[in-house]
């Protein structure tokens, strides 16, 4: 009966053929024991297959918002909940976290705290075992997840033998083995060195491009992510201030919200201040775009 329930909730919800996979309406949340709203009046609509970056200072409510999206709030964290969150057409308040985890998988900051088993394979199997799936199904999904993240050769390593970047990939694989449509990542690169961070971000981008996974990632290092993002959300003091295509958002003055924007954006902005010597039509998002635009102007 339990399995039927999972299967039922996993069916596509789009009654009216709606592609909207995340829908947040007037969301507010106050943690128990605090007297301020961690997030307030948040409205968000994300379509299936979109890549969304969530940026803002530490403590601006990014983590709280992500927790709301996969049901940790209100099921795990207590407090005052306002508004509603629909994930794949299901209200998070009516759905237990283990069902929601199969719709929206969450990856946390610290990779060490997400790996429980003593080998990579066992770790990817961990949530599936918890769900009570049949062994063949578990084996297939573990293989699939290993291949997806290109970590097949780590299969029988123990977590102690992995680098932080590899651990984070295993954590992602383990979450994806539950076959969610949405992947939520809460500052996944914060404990990684720049090269592993870039490597991980490349892997995440590929998940979105190749497998059409809806991705919502909260990050401080935007330079590498922005060219691939469909939307950029800037949060401050628990509210979403901007939510649009990155190019449009970056036209605004977002530096004061603790967002480290790509250098090329700053350069173009400074150039404009000096006085329209270089008429860039749009804000370039990467060095490549910048060079291309510059060549066009010089010619």
């Amino acid at each position: 009966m339990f399995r039927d329930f999972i299967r039922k909730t996993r069916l596509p919800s789009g009654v009216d053929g709606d592609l909207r996979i995340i829908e947040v309406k007037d969301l507010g949340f106050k943690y128990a024991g605090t007297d301020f709203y961690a997030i307030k009046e948040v409205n968000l609509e994300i379509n299936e297959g979109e890549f969304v970056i969530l940026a803002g200072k530490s403590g601006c409510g990014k983590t709280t918002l992500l927790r709301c999206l996969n049901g940790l709030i209100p099921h795990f964290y207590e407090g005052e909940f306002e508004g509603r969150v629909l994930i794949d057409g299901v209200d998070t308040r009516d759905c237990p976290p283990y069902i929601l985890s199969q719709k929206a998988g969450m990856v946390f900051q610290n990779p060490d705290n997400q790996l429980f088993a003593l080998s990579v394979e066992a770790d990817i199997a961990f949530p599936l075992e918890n769900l009570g799936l049949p062994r063949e199904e578990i084996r297939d999904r573990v293989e699939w997840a290993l291949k997806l993240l290109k970590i097949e050769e780590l299969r029988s390593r123990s977590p102690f033998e992995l680098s932080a970047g590899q651990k984070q990939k295993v954590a992602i694989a383990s979450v994806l083995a539950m076959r969610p449509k949405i992947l939520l990542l809460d500052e996944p690169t914060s404990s990684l060195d720049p090269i592993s961070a870039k490597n991980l971000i490349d892997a995440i981008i590929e998940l979105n491009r190749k497998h059409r996974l809806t991705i919502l990632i909260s990050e401080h290092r935007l330079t590498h992510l922005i060219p691939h993002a469909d939307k950029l959300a800037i949060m401050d003091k628990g509210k979403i201030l901007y939510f649009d295509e990155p190019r449009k958002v970056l036209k605004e003055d977002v530096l004061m919200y603790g967002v480290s924007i790509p250098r090329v954006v700053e350069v173009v902005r400074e150039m404009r201040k000096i006085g329209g010597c270089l008429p860039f039509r749009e804000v370039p998002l990467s060095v490549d775009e910048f060079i291309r635009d510059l060549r066009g102007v010089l010619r």
Partner: protein
Amino acid sequence: MAAILQGLQFYPGDSFIHRLDPRAKLLISTTFLFITLIYVEVTVTTIIIVAEALLAAISGTMRRWIKTVYGSIPFIVAVFLMNYLVRMFIPGQPPTQVILYESFAAAYRLIALLASFSIFFLTTTPEEIGMTLTKLKIPYMYVFAFISAIRFTPILAEELQTIMDSQRSRGLELDKGNPLTRLKRYIPILVPLIVNVLRRSYELAEAMEVKCFGASKKRTYLKELKLRPRDLFVIILTLISISISIYFKFINPIKIP
């Protein structure tokens, strides 16, 4: 002390013993323990120790195994002295020679006892131990606790080291003074460690929630232990040796030199 622990840690290898089903190995170690407990004779203890050494040699973990034996010397000396001294002062005891012999036998048995489980732990991965516990029908909650302990102990040890280093760099001296003041100096190390552990446990609980821990009452397993013919062979052999030892001890006692 550290030497004993080394002998209880998994040591990678690819021997016959390593490949044996962990349940068979557990049975072998338990049998050694059992026989050592029921027989006090030095001869039997020697046979057991030789057998243990033989298994250690086959599995290629001889050096580690010897370390366990070596590390247990303080305990053995303590047991010997306790036995000897206590009995010396109690009236109505046999002559000194007999007391010496019996104290020696008791201490000698301790070697066999401590070394018996060394074989199991040296050749079984923690993951296999976990699977064994599952097979022994121990509730998953406890198996999970066991696996987590193995998983997170090194991480906590690393954290402890970091805290100790940072407190030392702030001028905290840990190695000076009498035991009581030294103990007091550990407070600035324990407090941050405990705070960190609490914070971590919250994050772990969150991650467990996301990974559907406890979602299904009937948990399934990716890997399961399966007995192969050679495991059965070893198990039967071990059961026979248990039966023989029981027979000669309780049913038809014989005099062992």
